[in-house]
């Protein structure tokens, strides 16, 4: 018989005037995997945070095993057998897996019997098929191993309901498959699992039912066997959406950027990039794939002059054929040399934009130096702001409204709009659609394709392999700061790229 592990009734949560959740009701049964699906900002994480005791609902009821409960803190959540695995892991680097797992628990005696603890945990890991070395320190672990520690930690604390917030965002396709196997075993064991994600094929692969949120409201729950990617997207977005990305054939690709033996060290002297060599062509989109932290950030920042590196970065102006060496330059020098390079960094408000300023102030980031006067030019940035607002459909009360307060999609439109406005020859984007809703994501892909057709060399660092495979012309795979392969995106497969992402490359 199926019993409800958790039932939510009429949950509301407001942040200021924004309704993060409004009248949300859903149930999770024992021995079931429920996908919680919704676009960014639809209130999935907020809802789950109320189950794990981080937020407190403004109104509504929560039932665990049929009894109404109040969850005021993470401690209450533990006591009720609710465990949440967050996107950002909460582990102590210097401790081993086992130490992290028992951290903060009240044992029977004041002395820790490590042998007994290890036996207990091993029983648990064997039961569900986790691969985990309990004596390994967290700092030696891969992202997937850390995630395993988090899951085991929750099970060891007796969690009967596991909530996983975007667990596959940081995993390779192979690691994802393994995670899903483990989750299925837990389901057989009678655990209830909620998985938050916006990757549709994963929803279809793993879950029994799907609950959908849109703009903080509960839209409905469907059985996965009756759903398709298209039907789920429609529920999520509220309208019909076309789910394919254009990929025009490159026209007369010309060499634009040639990187040779680029090596770059982080502040501890460890190589973040290790003799990386590749060429980016004008009129082409070069995708860059890799597990988070494989050197993507360093690569783009070094080209943009924000980090020091050794080797050679040769920029060739596709029109004039003029060549410039970018190694050892800072952004100001690059700008003064007339190299038209645009960069949409990963940290939009922390690096590309000034959060407290309105749109004109943010346009000035690229242009405030123009003119000889000590005073700022006010008119042009204002005109550019109006233009971007209209062309890209930025939704803001006024162009002078601080960009920090705008939604992620609008922030990204402002940033991309500004960078494109300079008619760049080279456009680098890092995680350009992270956190954006589906419609905005597609308008960003469209903008990138437009730039490509105008002969711009586009470098697209992405995390969603499906998108990389559909959008790019070639894909460069980074692994541990080295290039583990450059493949033709039209012929390669997801599995091939996935393998390259974890291959600590001997050959390039």
């Amino acid at each position, binding site marked *: 018989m199926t019993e409800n592990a958790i039932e939510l009734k009429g949950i509301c949560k407001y942040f200021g*005037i924004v309704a993060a959740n409004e009248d949300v009701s859903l149930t999770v049964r024992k021995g079931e995997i429920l996908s919680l699906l919704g676009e960014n900002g639809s209130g999935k994480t907020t809802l789950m945070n109320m189950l794990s005791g981080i937020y*407190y609902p*403004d*109104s509504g009821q929560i039932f665990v095993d049929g009894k109404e409960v109040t969850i005021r803190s993470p401690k209450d959540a533990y006591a009720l057998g609710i465990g949440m695995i967050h996107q950002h892991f909460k582990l102590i680097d210097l401790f081993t897996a086992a130490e992290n797992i028992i951290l903060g628990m009240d044992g029977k005696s004041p002395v820790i019997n490590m042998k007994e603890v290890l036996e207990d945990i091993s029983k648990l890991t064997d039961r569900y098929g986790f691969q985990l070395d309990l004596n390994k320190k967290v700092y030696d672990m891969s992202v997937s191993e850390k995630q395993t520690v988090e899951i085991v930690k929750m099970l060891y604390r007796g969690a009967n309901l596991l909530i996983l917030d975007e667990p596959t965002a940081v995993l390779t396709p192979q690691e994802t498959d393994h995670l899903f196997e483990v989750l299925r075993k837990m389901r057989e064991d009678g655990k209830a699992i909620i998985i938050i994600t916006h990757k549709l094929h994963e929803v279809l692969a793993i879950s029994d039912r799907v609950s959908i949120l849109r703009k903080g409201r509960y839209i409905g729950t469907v059985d996965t066997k009756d759903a398709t990617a298209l039907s789920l997207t429609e529920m999520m977005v509220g309208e019909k959406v076309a789910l394919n990305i254009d990929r025009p054939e490159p026209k007369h690709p010309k060499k634009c950027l040639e990187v040779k033996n680029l090596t770059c060290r982080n502040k501890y002297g460890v190589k973040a990039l290790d003799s990386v060599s590749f060429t980016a062509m004008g009129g082409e989109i070069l995708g860059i794939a890799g597990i988070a932290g494989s050197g993507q950030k360093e690569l783009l920042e070094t080209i943009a002059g924000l980090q020091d590196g050794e080797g050679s970065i040769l920029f060739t102006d596709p029109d004039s054929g003029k060549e410039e060496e970018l190694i050892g330059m800072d*952004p100001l020098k690059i700008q003064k040399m007339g190299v038209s390079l645009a*960069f949409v960094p990963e940290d939009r408000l922390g690096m590309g934009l*000034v959060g407290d300023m309105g749109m004109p102030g943010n346009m000035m*980031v690229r242009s405030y*130096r123009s003119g000889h006067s000590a005073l*700022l030019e006010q008119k042009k940035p204002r005109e550019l702001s109006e233009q971007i607002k209209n062309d890209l459909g930025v939704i803001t009360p006024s162009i002078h409204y601080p960009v920090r307060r705008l939604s992620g999609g609008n922030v990204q439109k402002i940033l991309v709009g500004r960078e494109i406005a300079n008619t760049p020859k080279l456009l680098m984007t890092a995680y350009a659609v992270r956190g954006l809703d589906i419609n905005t994501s597609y308008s960003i892909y469209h903008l990138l394709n437009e730039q490509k057709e105008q002969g711009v060399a586009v470098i697209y660092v992405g995390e969603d392999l499906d998108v990389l495979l559909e959008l790019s012309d070639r894909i460069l795979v980074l692994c541990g700061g080295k290039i583990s392969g450059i493949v033709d995106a039209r012929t390669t497969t997801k599995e091939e790229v996935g393998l390259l992402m974890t291959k600590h490359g001997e050959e390039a």
Partner: protein
Amino acid sequence: MEANKHKEPFVRIVKRDRIPLWIALLIRLAAILLSLVVCALLIYLITHSNPIQVYRSMVDGAVGTGRRTWNTLRDTMILLAIALAITPAFKMRFWNIGAEGQILVGGIATAAVMRCCGDSLPTALLFLAMIAASLAAGLIWGLIPAVFKAHWNTNETLFTLMMNYIAIQLTAFFSIVWEAKKGSGTIGTINQKTQAGWISTSFLSDIFGNFNYSINLIIVLSITVAMFIYLKYTKHGYEIAVVGNSENTARYAGINVKRAIMRTVALSGAICGFTGFLLVSGSSHTISTSTAGGRGFTAIIVSWLAKFNPFVMILISFFLVFMGNGATQIASEFQLNESASEVIIGIILFFILGSEFFINFRLIFGKHGKEAR
């Protein structure tokens, strides 16, 4: 059904998204009124005098006579000048709490020029030398921590704080070197006979008549306008705002962050030094360790409460000085000691700063507390 586990939190704190201006003003006004009520209660408990009487004497103490009004205005201008001085640094998120020291070294430099060149230089040159010396001294005092911050990322709060103590010791040292009477340990009035280097005797006062503090007024109000323009409309001002918001964005924009830090804090220090000149040449004609009198710290409150808007700072400086001078009057009129006025100012500040909490957050009582939209 209601298990004993099922309890509601009594109160929850929720961040406000935005707040209409008039409500924010109302909250602040309420805070001031509330602080006055608490002060009245306190005064009544101690002196048993009529609180309204007490507040009347407070107003009387601040603006009761022409002279008191001018004193209040003069003090307002000094506090305003310091607040303006620290604003560029604070806007850049450089926590300069070294205004005290920067004022003192500016004052020492002014006093040194007055003593050494008071008799030899013509008035115009003497003033130029005094101003230049005070600017340079404050600039150096600000630049030292800025250089360390820019190049080695030292903590500027601790650094500027320690620079204050060095400046205080320096002042104490010169109080002995230059002491008026052997063993007195104070400098006494500089150039008492010639009044050389006093703003009140300078050729300027012929233009402005008896109320020579109006020179202060004009100078500081000019700085106010200049600072407003500098922060809002110049390229330097833009760089300050960008660096303060995000150093990475600043680097991305090609701003030389090190140079921006050093330039801005040097400017901040120089204006503090200039305030030292205003204090020594314009009002006290001497210097002691208490010349800055904690105003370097009060100015931080002024600058923050004004959200770095120079024109709002005029109002806030005036309010704080008005309260301060009024409280001093209460203390003397009702035979309370000096600390009583500090207690009163402390209570008022507590309420004003506390009201910022209610402007940024709101409280919800019980589970089904209605959401104010």
